[in-house]
């Protein structure tokens, strides 16, 4: 009996998980992805000025092609 209850609970959880975006979301197509030139490290600017500077420097390094090494 316990397993029937657990099975029912799991079924409800998965169905709700799947249905939620369909019932609450908007159909609008989302904005396209950012251009490829934006490296992930450049998005982590909220951690402070140091990180911001580092991110900018890393981006410049990437722009200059210095980032790829001996792979």
């Amino acid at each position, binding site marked *: 009996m316990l*397993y029937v209850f*657990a*099975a029912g609970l*799991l*079924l409800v*959880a*998965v169905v709700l*998980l*799947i*249905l*939620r*975006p*369909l019932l609450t*979301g*908007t*159909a*609008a*197509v*989302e*904005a*396209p*992805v*950012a251009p*490829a030139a934006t490296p*992930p*490290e450049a998005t982590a600017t909220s951690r402070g000025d140091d990180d911001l*500077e*580092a*991110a*900018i*420097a*890393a*981006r*410049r*390094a*990437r*722009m*200059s*092609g*210095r*980032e*790829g*090494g*001996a*792979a």
Partner: protein
Amino acid sequence: MAEFGTFTVLLALAAAAWAAVAAWIGYRRGDARFVRSAEAGLQGALLSLTVSAGVLWTLFLTRDFSVRYVAEYSDQHLSIPLTISAFWAGQNGSLLFWAWVLAGAAGLVTVRERHRARELMPIVVLTLALVLVAFTALVAFTSNPFERLGFTPADGAGLNAMLQNWGMIYHPPATFLGYIGFTVPFAFAVAALVTGRLDSEWVRLVRPWVLWSWILLGIGIILGARWAYTELGWGGYWAWDPVENVSLLPWLTATAYLHTAVLQERRGKLPVWNLSLTFVTFAMTVFGTFLVRSGVASSVHAFAESSAGIYLLGVIVAVIVAGVALITWRLPLLKDASTPISGLSRERLIVVTNAVLMVFTLAIFWGTLFPVITSVLQGREVTVGEPFFDLVTIPVTLALLVLFGLAPAVAWRQARTHGLQRRLALPAAAALVAGLATALLDGGRHPLTSLTLSLSAFALATVLLEFHHGVHGQGLRGIREHLPRLLGLFRRDPRRYGGAVVHLGMVLLIIGVALDVTYRSDERHTLTVGESAEVGRYVLTFEDLTSEITQTRMSLAATLGVARQSGTDAGSLTTERYLNVNQEDPRTAVGVRSLVREDVYVILQEVDVDSETATFSVHLHPGVLWLWVGSGLLILGGLLALLPPRGAPAREEDAALTSVAAGGEDEEVR
């Protein structure tokens, strides 16, 4: 409870199937709600399969032998850690584990990449969902680990004696994690082809996934090698066993990809090749799964023959057909960058490295598949053994050593001959000295080994010089300044210096193997407790013989003291023969004392308890420690290459930008 387990697998199958359908609808209609629902479907499948895994572990730990899989792979006496590892000891459980980890990877993709790869996500989710459907259906319909026996035996058959080892706990999961991780780059490659977004964006997005999978598969292979080295019956650290070979294949193709992906990111080169490599790598992981589970390969690793094999063959065919069809369809968009690869440049070396790796991959693939083909077509057993693989491995290894040595010295775009001569002078001298020294030391009896060690010295010297130049670039002095500067290199350019550590590890690994296969020796000694024997430069003393009988295990363990001829103590080792309950044949655990120059490797062959006399097979394996050190560096280098690059000081950046503006970008010239 087993029925609940079956239900959770079926629910996961339904959730994954919904994810595939919703992702397709979302893509066709451009409706974000369906894409989100598809992502939730994958997360639902992960939730269900997590419960499935929990149920199977509970069945094992509560010793529910009414479940066939539990009865076949465990018994009352199996220790808790090994009972936990029995999950993946057989086909059905390992396929459930596979599906569960795949769902985990898919769930992680939906969370991690959702915002970064918005346009690719519908097809990424669709592809992951289809693969998950394939594996979950395999679990549900051909290999259900929750199937009941119809009766409850008093005890289970127990875990195979060869699998009762600590290696069982970490080697299979690490290998599976590596295999499964390669599904994600495959999904991104399919998405890039279907959506037509064929710039280098997908290459950038999949890089951490490829690198993590490469690292995990590497860890799995190394841990397996270590296990096989210390337990008799597996054939030593590498035996060219079909299942060992198929684990190496995707690792090699992924290695090739990690190199050419740089060319696409930096120069827009080889887009078709990179897409093909992601397809091939994924197909190789399924091929490995097929070979283990179809019963066609004769291997100590293989599971019994089952219908899962033909099913997996279908998946491989589907992947190859889809890959060829998609690439052919998108060929007009897959234009290689117009800038040619010049005569001697880093780009050229990467292409040559790829060619060497591909030759190696094809040779291993053929050597592994040939016995299968002859068995199927002609009905006769053919074995492709070490001589064939050695024939291929030796020239490939030599070529790779040359490439490891040249790579750091050759600049991107176009190397200047004069600078190259200057940079290679010291490594060439190191190669000459190492080659001559080894030839003199062994009287020129092993020219191939001398050549290997000579080229290893060449490669080591260029890799170490690369670090030396990096550290000394700003005229620093003293170790207190060097160490932070050395660590700083990995933060400034993790790819380059992480890659250099990988190359360093490979060179040490090659040196270890070359020394071992050339100079290993073995002899037999029969000793009574207290007696000693001279073996090479060591004296082994049979110190103690102990016997132990517990409810689950009988064992005889011999302890030997190891001392150098000079009299200095070099530790001790213990080798044992044991018999676990439910097993017929005794097994032997090897005693190993790892020293810098060589491993003292002792096998307990025969024992006479009454007279306290034992016969030992004593092997000296020179250089094996370097094999493990090199393997460790290989993994460490991969992890370092994953670090996010931190910005270098502005002054250097400006210099680099100026260099690019001037058409240079020759950062390796110092």
